[in-house]
Each structure stands twice: as C-alpha cells, then as structure tokens.
C-alpha cells in the first residue's frame, strides 16, 4: 500500500523534499515508515528520540498502524512562538 510522507524543517532539507510517496508493507506502523526512511536518509537517525509523528493531521504514536492513502507527518522538535 502507499502512503504520503510529509517532512518539515531540517527533515525536509535532509530529504530534499517536503512530500514523498512510499510503498509500505500491509500492517506497517508509523514507526516502520520512519525506520524505512531512516535507511533511505541516514541523517534522520539523529532524530530517533526527538521525533513526533502525525497521521492525517492528528498527532499519532509510533505504534499506530497506517492505512493505504494515509498522510504520515514526521515532526522534528518544534520551535514556534
């Protein structure tokens, strides 16, 4: 199945794209998508402990199962305000 991945701030710079489409295995979790991206972009590994994630524009945990067509966002530590 396919998901859209949204990347922000330095993750976007590292990946060179704000949006990616990726094939993921059925039953994959958000964490599995992240692991897959970390293999593709080794610099993502530095964010292993500080990343937050969202599914379809709602915060979601890494153990959340993703569905075909979901928009998965990975959020480095925030700095609004």
């Amino acid at each position, binding site marked *: 199945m396919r998901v859209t991945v*949204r990347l922000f701030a330095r993750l976007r710079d590292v990946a060179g794209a704000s949006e990616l489409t990726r094939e993921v295995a059925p039953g994959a979790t958000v964490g599995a998508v992240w692991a897959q991206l970390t293999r593709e972009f080794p610099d993502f590994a530095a964010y292993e402990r500080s990343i*937050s994630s969202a599914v379809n524009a709602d915060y979601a945990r890494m153990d959340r199962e993703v569905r075909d067509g979901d928009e998965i966002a990975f959020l480095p*530590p*925030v700095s609004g305000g």
Partner: protein
Amino acid sequence: MVTTPLLSIGVEPLRVDGLVSAVSGEGDGAVVSFLGLVRNHNAGRRVRYLEYEAYEPLALKVFERIAAEARERWPGVRFGLQHRIGRLEIGEASVAIAAASAHRADAFAACRYAIERVKQIAPIWKHEFFEGGDVWIEGATADPEDRRARAEAERVACA
C-alpha cells in the same frame, strides 16, 4: 467590518488591536495580550531574519486544543491565537495571543499558559538566518499528551 479569526495561521502581519477587540465582551474587565517579536540576536548570533513554517492543518487543531485547555482551566476566558509564517524581519511579530476575562488574574494566566503550550506542541518551526549562516531552531519534542509539559505550562503561568 472585517472579522478577525480567533485562531489562525498565515503570512499577513499580525496586529494586536484586532485580536483584542475580537476576544473582548461586555462582561470582561481585562484583556492580556502577548506578541512574540523577531529579535536581532539569538544565542550570540546576529539575526538577519527568520522564516517560519508550519504543518498548518495540525497547527490549527493544536490551537483549538490549547484554547480548550485554557477554557477548561480558566472558565469564561475568551481566547485568540494567531501565528505568522513565511519570512519575518527583525521587530515583526511571529505570534499574537489575547485572553479576555472578567478578572485580570485569569487573563494573565491564560495568556501565559497559551504561549508556553504553543512552544511545547504547535507544529511550527523557526529557520534562523544569521550573519554567517542559517540554522533550524529545534526546541521541544511535541507531545500533546505529556502531562508533565502541561503541568509545567500551568506552573509558569502562575496559575
């Protein structure tokens, strides 16, 4: 008359008067507002300008969450929160918050709480362009369910 949206994200310059008017009702005796401004220095660097980026649909939901938290903690407070994105020059406002209440203690506390929560959980990032380079500012790991973070925001708000 132009209505001011109480919760918004956009590229337009922020002004506090409109937000103050939008949150104030006839039963309110106090409005406290906060403006975050782009400083000309940060961590020893001379800042040239900032660029803000947001995950907008989630950020708007987070603003609604912060407003709901503030109303739960300080019933009766009316609340507005606007964040700017895009390129901001020195002295421009990145965020405007206003809280109106019958009594000033609640308005001060709710306004302070809101800016703390924005910094904790709003999916917004600051890209700093300084003399000699640029850097993404990385602050808090966003976790809206983190009770300790919320308690810390209440503590700082002197609630």
